[in-house]
């Protein structure tokens, strides 16, 4: 999940709602989509901006760990594929930024919130990609975990967000499959390659489970977001689904999930598994993960180094528009 621990704003019980708020909730309950210019509670708007922008920032920052390996991909074909995947992530970030902008916040404001640290991005992108097997693990596990959440969000109540999700989901399964085929190549390769694949799984397993965020079954924020249909499943539901889906895939690869307590539970029809270390999760969110500083420095540099380009093209566009205006015949004469 690319949005973690989004705090909902303006929570209200039905009896505290005014007429407009009740009518709004009724539309959502009836499965209607909310569109940009329509009236919405301030809390709904603010919570959505927070969630969509966190999701967008994750897509953009998520390009960094994978971009790290574009120049070192093992074959030209793998390089092209990875390049296409990282380009997709940029596209996903843009779809989501545009969805957030329909709520009345500007792109520059969103970017400033990321760079100042006010807005968060997914904890997973603060882990390093040390070798090529990690690129396989990221596609397989990280994109796999993201899809769990994104598929459900196609039904979210805010129209532009739901439409962005539909586009993203169409493209995302390519990402997971390309990751899994890298894992297959490594796991079925030489013993050294297989060891690398196992090592990548060992390092990415728990951070991937953390992507869903801590249990929120008792969270009031989560309950509000679910009432507004901007969150569809609880974090635990999605995590369980992810584990149930991933265990057989690891088995096919001949790799071992790094969890001694992992066991099939016939009664619940799913696996029992160990929780990740949540103190590590909170430390990473606070900025103390292995790569937080590096990621933010890269985003800041991209913003600073791009300033002359953004300003130059804008100045050129304005100059050309002025010239066109000056060349127009004056109708009033």
């Amino acid at each position: 999940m690319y949005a973690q621990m989004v705090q909902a704003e303006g929570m209200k019980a039905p009896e505290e709602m005014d007429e407009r708020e009740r009518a709004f909730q009724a539309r959502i309950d009836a499965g209607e989509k909310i569109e940009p210019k329509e009236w919405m509670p301030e809390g709904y708007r603010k919570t959505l901006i927070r969630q969509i922008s966190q999701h967008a920032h994750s897509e953009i920052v998520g390009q960094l760990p994978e971009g790290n390996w574009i120049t070192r991909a093992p074959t030209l074909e793998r390089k092209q594929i990875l390049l296409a995947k990282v380009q997709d992530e940029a596209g996903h970030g843009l779809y989501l930024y545009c969805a957030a902008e329909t709520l009345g916040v500007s792109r520059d404001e969103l970017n400033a919130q990321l760079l100042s640290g006010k807005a968060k991005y997914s904890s997973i992108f603060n882990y390093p990609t040390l070798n090529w097997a990690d690129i396989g693990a990221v596609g397989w596990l990280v994109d796999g975990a993201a899809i769990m959440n994104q598929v459900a969000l196609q039904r979210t109540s805010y129209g532009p967000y739901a439409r962005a999700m539909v586009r993203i989901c169409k493209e995302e399964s390519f990402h997971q499959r390309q990751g899994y085929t890298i894992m297959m190549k490594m796991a079925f390769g030489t013993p050294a390659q297989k060891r690398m694949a196992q090592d990548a799984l060992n390092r990415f397993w728990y951070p991937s489970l953390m992507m869903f965020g801590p249990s929120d079954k008792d969270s009031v924020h989560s309950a509000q977001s679910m009432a507004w249909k901007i969150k569809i499943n609880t974090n635990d539901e999605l995590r369980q689904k992810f584990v149930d889906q991933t265990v057989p895939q690891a088995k096919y690869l001949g790799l071992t999930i790094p969890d001694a307590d992992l066991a099939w539970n016939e009664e619940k029809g799913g696996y029992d598994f160990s929780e990740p270390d949540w103190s590590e999760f909170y430390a990473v969110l606070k900025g103390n993960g292995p790569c937080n500083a590096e990621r933010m420095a890269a985003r800041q540099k991209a913003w600073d180094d791009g300033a002359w380009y953004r300003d130059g093209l804008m100045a050129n566009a304005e100059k050309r528009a002025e010239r066109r205006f000056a060349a127009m015949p004056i109708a009033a004469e």
Partner: protein
Amino acid sequence: MSKEWPLWEVFIRGQHGLNHRHVGSLHAPDAEIALLNARDVYTRRNEGVSIWVVKSSDITASAPSDKGPLFDPSNAKVYRHPTFFEVPEEVGHM
């Protein structure tokens, strides 16, 4: 303080014979670059045969609160639909 690139709405004709359809928006300094960006952002998988870009500020939209006055009247004019008229079976398909 530098200026933010304006917002453009992107419309794509998916196949020959279909209408252009709104697919999303993007930022660009001018129309030419908006087209280039639209190609990169919205047609990475063969989604289109033609692109339109329009500055978002040039679009005039009806207000959500006008929904009733604008569209309710046509609800009352059921005779605009062919199913309003009953044609005897003997007449055959019409």
